[in-house]
């Protein structure tokens, strides 16, 4: 498949500027700026984290250079190419959803935090799962040693979900969900079964999953199986939703971890979009249409170094998505062309003096809000150190509420649209993303980007480049390379309840001994059959989950059938 090029963009980039503004800009630089700046050493390197040089001033001459055409490149919110927004009224009529990612300990302890979050205004909760759950090990597995309830809540069976959402009906907030990247069909089934237990129809609540296994091999590291079967299982969750819960969002394709790990937001977006194409192609090959599939997919963009690049990246992403869906995949429904975005506000958080991370994450998140994100999370100021404590979780939520309600940030739609600087960055970022996608296409697509080591190289080189920019001072960072302070992990960092692991083990043992063993056996056999016959696994997994089969028992079947992933030792 060909990568689509935005028509006209950059067509005249190489020609000599001749307009009055362009000539006047050159004159200003020569006669006014240069003499004033003479002998003053640049106080930093003026270059974005994505490698674009930043000029001192942007004028209409830059719009000429990118061959800017308002109607073609921007249009209007809620209309093709959706550059200015995926929804018609954006935050005026359809405010971004105030979201929290939270989880720790066992379901009981975590349920108390969730109730508190809902009470203070959280509209969406994504459950942070502990690493054993994310990696498909039950709490009593040897690999789970010292990890149960550590970076998230332990979920072994549906019994844990029932406790986790006790007193929080699935339809009482806008969306519930989790990441579950390597166990997508299982977490989908757990949320479907939760609705059944609570007596709430699937059509009455919305489940959001990350369910994007491919980026785990590149950046996040919870992969279980080889990439190809992992991607297939993830698309089973999407296909099941097309049939049974088209109002759910069962897949959020992530730039986030790929950028954070070193790729930069442009190459990170290129890799994520290539991953999205892989999932989409699998679904189309099963006979689903793009109009059925695309509205269920979200993107999770990320840029945490440069404010204006962040705004531009969101706008460019929406434009590329719309064009890809319409021109390449032949989508006809606007919902299939409008890219809905989930974002997680970060700044460049530091370990020293963690309270400074409050303004950092607020600025980072403001960029996403101005860029028109649909679902917005914000990192706790202590999140670089530990699971946010109750106080930092509250500050994060209140910061989101302030961004949504104060200062007029959300009054006008796409308020930075038309800025000479932001439009230039949007066009430049779009070009970088499309080039990156073409590069990945050339080596054979998303799976090849993983198997050839391409993505890993991009990541390591980017991480090393960032480290050098920090060590050299090219990228200023307060308390790190400017006014440096010793990094500190304070003793007040959140500590999980030491009894959570014991409680979890006891509950798991109880559930295992009291469940209907015959039903368990039948259900596991059906998961095994569905997997072997390459059918959609979700119906069989749902029946297993209802029978209180554990996450580990289901994943063990997949490990046996597909084999385990082999960790790379390259660096």
């Amino acid at each position, binding site marked *: 498949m060909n990568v689509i090029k935005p028509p006209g963009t950059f067509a005249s980039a190489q020609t000599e500027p001749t307009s009055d503004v362009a000539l006047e800009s050159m004159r200003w630089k020569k006669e006014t700026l240069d003499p004033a700046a003479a002998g003053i050493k640049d106080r930093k390197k003026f270059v974005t984290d994505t490698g674009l040089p930043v000029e001192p001033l942007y004028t209409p001459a830059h719009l000429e250079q990118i061959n800017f055409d308002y109607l073609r490149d921007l249009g209007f919110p809620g209309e093709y190419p959706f550059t200015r927004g995926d929804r018609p009224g954006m935050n005026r009529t359809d405010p971004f959803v105030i979201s929290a990612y939270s989880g720790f300990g066992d379901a009981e302890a975590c349920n108390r935090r969730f109730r508190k979050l809902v009470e203070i205004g959280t509209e969406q909760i994504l459950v942070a799962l502990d690493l054993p759950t994310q990696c498909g090990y039950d709490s009593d597995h040897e690999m789970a040693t010292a990890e149960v309830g550590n970076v998230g809540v332990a979920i072994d069976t549906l019994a844990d979900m029932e406790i986790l959402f006790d007193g929080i009906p699935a339809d009482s907030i806008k969306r519930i969900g989790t990441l579950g990247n390597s166990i997508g069909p299982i977490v989908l089934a757990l949320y479907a079964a939760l609705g059944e237990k609570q007596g709430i129809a699937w059509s009455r609540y919305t489940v959001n999953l990350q369910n994007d296994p491919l980026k*785990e091999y590149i950046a996040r590291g919870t992969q279980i199986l080889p990439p190809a079967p992992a991607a297939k299982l993830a698309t089973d969750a999407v296909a099941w939703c097309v049939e049974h819960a088209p109002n759910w969002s069962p897949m959020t394709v992530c730039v986030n971890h790929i950028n*954070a790990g070193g790729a930069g937001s442009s190459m990170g977006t290129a890799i994520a979009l290539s991953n999205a194409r892989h999932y989409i192609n699998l679904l189309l090959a099963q006979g689903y249409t793009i109009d059925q599939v695309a509205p269920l997919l979200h993107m999770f963009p990320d840029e945490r170094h440069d404010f204006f690049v962040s705004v531009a990246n969101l706008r460019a992403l929406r434009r590329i998505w719309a064009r890809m869906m319409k021109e390449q995949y032949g989508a006809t429904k606007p919902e299939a062309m409008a890219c809905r975005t989930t974002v997680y506000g970060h700044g460049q958080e530091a370990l020293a003096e963690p309270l400074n991370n409050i303004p950092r994450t607020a600025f980072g998140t403001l960029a996403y809000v101005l860029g028109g994100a649909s679902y917005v999370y914000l990192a706790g100021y202590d999140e670089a150190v530990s699971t946010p404590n109750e106080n930092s979780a509250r500050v994060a939520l209140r910061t989101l509420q302030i961004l949504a309600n104060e200062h007029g940030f959300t009054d006008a739609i796409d308020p930075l649209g038309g800025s000479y600087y932001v439009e230039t960055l949007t066009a430049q970022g779009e070009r970088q993303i499309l080039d990156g996608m073409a590069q990945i296409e050339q080596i054979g697509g998303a799976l090849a980007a993983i198997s050839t080591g391409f993505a890993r190289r991009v990541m390591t080189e980017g991480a090393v480049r960032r480290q050098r920019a920090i060590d050299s001072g090219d990228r200023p960072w307060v308390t790190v390379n400017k006014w440096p302070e010793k990094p500190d*992990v304070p003793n007040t960092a959140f500590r999980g309840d030491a009894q959570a692991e014991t409680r979890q083990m006891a509950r798991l043992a109880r559930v295992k001994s009291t469940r209907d063993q015959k039903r368990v056996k039948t259900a596991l056999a059906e998961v095994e059959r569905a997997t072997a016959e390459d059918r959609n696994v979700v119906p069989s997994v749902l029946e297993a989950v209802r029978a209180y089969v554990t996450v580990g028992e289901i994943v063990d079947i997949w490990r046996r059938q597909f084999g385990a992933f082999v960790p790379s030792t390259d660096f």
Partner: protein
Amino acid sequence: MSPPTNGQPQRRKIRVLIAKVGLDGHDVGARVVARGLLDAGMEVIYTGLRRTNEDVVRAAIEEDVDWVGVSILSGAHRVLLPRLRKLLDESGANDIRILAGGIIPQEDIPELQACGVDKIFLSGTPIAEIVDYLVKETKHV
């Protein structure tokens, strides 16, 4: 040992095994440190993700390293690091020393050092500081 050059015995390079133990999948820090130590002229091996302590001890002995640098961000350090020290000692590798890097609360540091973890570098430590420490502390250098 390599043959002597210019009449001088060539010094053995510092050998470091960078390791990820447990389920924590964040290895950017580990890879950046590995690359930094390599650039500083050391010999570096990386275990890749999700290793058991047993895997790490085996690799450390096979590769005859001076140091094992363990990266942990998931909070499992209090259990995993003392176990690693114990396993190394039990395998007769008391001379292999342990560095830890990542997110480790201050109050845990004395406890870890008492259990035989040599030094802890928190996230954000400049690579040069780690290099200096290794050059200063490695016995044969």
